[in-house]
């Protein structure tokens, strides 16, 4: 009940935020030089005034800005995200076609980075002052400091070109006609490199955060209490320190999960992953306003959803919040 009410209220708030984001982005994009008509014309390699006029009229770009905004906003209200100028398809279709790929990629990377990061971080926290603990932290720091795209390029060269273990790009083998389990395996194979690359950076963050958080939690009084009970270090580490240390990580992970959608632009570009980040970059380059706005809308919506999920998870993890409310 409480959750239901909470979610409803949060969603209401989300609608307001999304509305503002739509307006903000709409105005922002108008500030960009060039317009979709000139770009489409440019791509054709030839143009005349008539052609540009036709396109602008067709896209409604000849209308005053506020009229365009009104059309757009009222469209959104009925979940009509408009028409992609360049791709000639409804924006919603384009986004829905690409969204699953991004969610698969970022979701995998997210889970991977979170699990590995927490494991590595707890190991490092338990091995403070030992070489193995320092090694974990050094690795985490290096992963953190290495530019993502550089790792991606190197991974392709190593694993696809030299070793030929994994496909270098794409989401599935085109033309192989895989279905069912075979398709899943195929996609999984394609997923390895991009997901790992994307996960490395975030894993580094979680590793460092987990360690710091656990070291702090291990200073708390209740840990002393637990020791006074005669509990073994392993139980204390897991049940008392880790559980408490996870609270700040939940918050961070919630923030990161939303950001990963944007962060996947580079990964999707290098690995030709047909996701929404890449689509966004292309839409921006092509001034495909409707598409770009649609993507912003969806990614902002995702961020908000992740925030709400984070809140709920936090509530599950920390009984104090529930009571306070």
């Amino acid at each position, binding site marked *: 009940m409480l959750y239901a009410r909470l979610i409803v209220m949060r969603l209401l708030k989300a609608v307001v935020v999304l509305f503002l984001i739509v307006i903000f982005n709409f105005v922002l994009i108008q500030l960009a030089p060039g317009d979709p008509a000139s*770009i489409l014309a440019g791509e054709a390699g030839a143009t005349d005034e008539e052609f540009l006029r036709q396109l602008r009229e067709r896209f409604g770009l000849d209308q005053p800005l506020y009229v365009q905004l009104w059309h757009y906003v009222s469209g959104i209200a009925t979940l009509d995200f408009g028409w992609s100028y360049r791709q000639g398809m409804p924006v919603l279709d384009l986004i829905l076609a690409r969204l699953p790929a991004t969610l698969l990629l970022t979701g995998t990377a997210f889970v991977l980075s979170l699990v590995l990061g927490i494991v590595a971080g707890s190991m490092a926290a338990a091995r403070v002052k030992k070489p193995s603990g320092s090694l974990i932290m050094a690795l985490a720091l290096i992963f953190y400091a290495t530019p993502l795209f550089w790792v991606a390029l190197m991974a392709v060269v190593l694993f696809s070109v030299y070793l030929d273990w994994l496909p270098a790009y794409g989401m599935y083998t085109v033309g192989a006609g895989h279905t069912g389990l075979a398709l899943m395996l195929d996609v999984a194979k394609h997923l390895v490199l991009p997901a790992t690359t994307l996960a490395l950076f975030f894993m580094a963050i979680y590793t460092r955060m987990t360690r710091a958080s656990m070291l702090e939690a291990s200073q708390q009084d209740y840990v002393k209490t637990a020791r006074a009970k005669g509990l073994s270090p392993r139980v204390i580490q897991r049940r008392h320190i880790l559980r408490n240390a996870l609270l700040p990580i939940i918050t961070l992970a919630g923030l990161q999960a939303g950001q990963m959608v944007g962060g996947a632009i580079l990964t999707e570009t290098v690995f030709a992953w*047909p996701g929404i980040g890449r689509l966004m970059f292309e839409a921006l380059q092509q001034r495909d306003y409707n598409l770009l706005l649609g993507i912003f809308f969806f990614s902002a919506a995702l961020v908000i959803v992740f925030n709400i999920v984070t809140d709920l998870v936090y509530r599950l993890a920390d009984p104090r919040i529930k009571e306070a409310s």
Partner: protein
Amino acid sequence: MRKTPLAAAIAALAFTTTFALADEPKRGGTIDTIIQPEPPGLVLGMVQNDPTRKVAGNIYEGLLRYSTDLEPIPQLAESWEVSDDGLTYTFHLREGVLWHDGEPFTAEDVVFSADVFHRELNPSARAVLQHVESIEATDDHTVVFTLAEPFGPFLISFEAGTFTMVPKHIYEGTDFRDNEANNHPIGTGPFKFDSWDRGTVIQLVRNDDYYEEGLPYLDGVNWHIIPDGASRAVAFENGTVDVLPNGTVENFDIPRLSAMDNSCITDKGNEYFSPFAMLWMNNREGPTADKRFRQAVMYAMNREFARDVLWNGMGQVPLSAFGSNAKFRHDGLEPYDHDPERARELLEEMGYDGEEIRLLPLPYGETWNRWAEAVQQNLREVGVNVRTVATDVGGWNQRLGDWDYDLAFTYLYQYGDPALGITRSYRSDNIEKGSPWNNVEGYENERIDELFDEAATAYPEEEREALYHEAQEILHEDVPVGWLMELGFPTIYRCDVKDLITSGVGINDAFRDAWLDR
């Protein structure tokens, strides 16, 4: 000038390709290739950008094709006649041609395509159609075009990308752009549209009802969409794709890819478009308004270096405004060699005071960026104060359209005839804000306008040649734009892909004749 081994290799390869024609073609197999960037749509005529032409050129057809020497070859038109006064063109259409949906292709489709569809949607076709007074279908398989005045390049304008034949029965009376069929293009070509998984692949399948007996040999073509250049190279290397159309990989990868086993390379197939790289120079204001400054730029640039280092030695450094395979080229002009000393003298003579010059690179990938850096450095070395202004495509269009630049890279297609591809950049009636493709530099010379006007409608060819030669001399002296390079966009493919490039538009209709020797 350093001659690269690669260029020599290409020459040799071109020879072997021709030789291979003797083999007996094998049937079957699917070719994987790449399309970059992802096309906005596949209905030629509605969209004419390069990726659309490449993919849809295998779905749609025009009345004529053009050989690598730009001679017309029959396609949907079996034969044609031109009246002596150069005003009436009669095309006899091939019989028994079916649209992909099974409807017959007739003269009505030609009239509809040219007179209705293209007049409304297609700016490049419009440029030709303005010379056309009427189009008539005299019977089911005969179409007559009547021109208002002679138009020299008329017969070279029927290429599929510019003058696509679209099905009347589908488009007539509809809002062309909103037509449902746009998602499932219907043409007459050797391949039918099968599916398009956005961001991943476009698949074409064999048209079993194709009118040319036995063609095509292939069962299908998969056009992969891979946004990153390095990944595209990897796709060829690890064997996922067989053909890299021109412009799909960065130039720096070409030597490595073409050196692989079973890898062939050709620079054929660019003849119709002949991409010509130029440097817009703003003739209206600032130092670039001074002829001497523009000449200095020509002397300052090391164009051979750019070709050898950035373009792997492929392509030609042009003498002047007309490219090496352009009709009516004037060979007797004094070349603008790399001569920094001369450039400095000219700058001193005009009293260049170090005013900042804004240089816009072409936002089409790394090679163009490197090129801009090289030119920037060339110019700095002769004392020109250059600042590079980075833009994306939108920004570039906007700035050129607003004439807000000093120097800007671009490249333009030549379309086989000066009147179609070259003169548009110099005629003063083509000065108009808002487009980056007209006379953007703002060059105005009445004599040039006259010469071009006369040359376009002069008849026969000899008369045109004389007029164009005079124009070239004037342009060569005035340097309205910098002539950088005729680009040699190579196509890389597995050597067991046979008969790939057979026309002057290269990959755009390549898969019609191609077969796999596997």
